[in-house]
């Protein structure tokens, strides 16, 4: 905890900021990338969102007060960036978010950076049918193996509600995959 406080101070001080930020990017780039990628699905979109996320973190680090862990603060920014990106994409295309999800899945079938077998494609299709919150919770718990306590800080939702969301999501996915 003390170590994190010192690191945050280094990120906020002008003289040490650049070096500390390099360390931050190096430490979190992969975790945040996969978190974003599972939301936006496409690699190029994930790359754009990830870069914007880090730029936003860099610009706003001075506002970080340490009320939550740095880790969960960054995940909140990444999640907001990814969801805002999808909303804007749907709006610019003049389609609903549900239609956008269908399009993203269609694109995934021809995506060179998706090497999944049929079951993985079906799983992504099933995940795309979930409500947004359940989709986030499922990905964070199942693929990212995140603790409910950390998810609670990131998504500002109680641990009990997250567990229920995850359970509902798994049940829906199993039903969908069994039927299809």
């Amino acid at each position, binding site marked *: 905890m003390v170590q994190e406080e010192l690191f945050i101070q280094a990120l906020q001080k002008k003289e040490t900021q650049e070096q500390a930020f390099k360390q931050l990017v190096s430490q979190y780039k992969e975790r945040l990338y996969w978190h974003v990628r599972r939301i936006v699905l496409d690699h190029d979109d994930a790359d754009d969102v990830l870069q914007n996320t*880090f730029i936003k973190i860099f610009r706003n680090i001075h506002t970080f007060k340490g009320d939550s862990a740095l880790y969960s603060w960054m995940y909140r920014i990444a999640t907001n960036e990814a969801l805002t990106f999808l909303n804007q994409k749907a*709006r610019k295309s003049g389609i609903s978010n549900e239609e956008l999800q269908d399009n993203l899945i269609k694109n995934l079938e021809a995506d060179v950076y998706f090497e999944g077998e049929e079951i993985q494609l079906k799983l992504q299709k099933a995940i795309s049918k979930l409500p947004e919150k359940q989709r986030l919770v499922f990905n964070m718990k199942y693929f990212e193996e995140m603790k409910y306590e950390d998810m609670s800080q990131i998504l500002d939702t109680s641990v009990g509600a997250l567990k229920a969301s995850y359970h509902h999501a798994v049940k829906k996915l199993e039903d969908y995959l069994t039927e299809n």
Partner: protein
Amino acid sequence: MKKDFLHNKKDGFKLPEDYFGKFEDNLFNTVSEKSDFHLPDTSGFEVPHNYFETLEDRILTKIQSEKHQGQKVKSLKTVKYILGGIAAALIISLSIINIKPTTAEDELNNLSSTDVENYIDDGYLSLSSYDIGELFSDEISDISMTTSLDDDAIIDYLVTYDITQEEP
């Protein structure tokens, strides 16, 4: 003696450590285990070769180039001014719609709020918040907040949206 016994409600039963804390997890695991169906362990997503190796440099280069372009972070003190600017942008959008009904009435009538939002999002509204503030200084001073904003809400807003301005 009997009286003491009645007041002592301990029944001697004990629970495993953190039994209730882990109850939902255990229950959901049991439900999943009973199902014949198992979800795949991997998502199937891949990244281009050397993507993560070059990522840091690209991000740092982008930040450096933004610095050179003279962008800086706006302070919390100016948030009211920004909100005023956003409101004024909406006023301008609506004014534009009202000013030109005689020249392209049909087209403007068909203009949806989504189109207006996209127009602003795409950066076609070539006015800075400073310009808008100058133009509509009277209107902005009339804008009153009906709901007070707490610091956390303001910080969340700043974190969620890009709030930048050019160097004077």
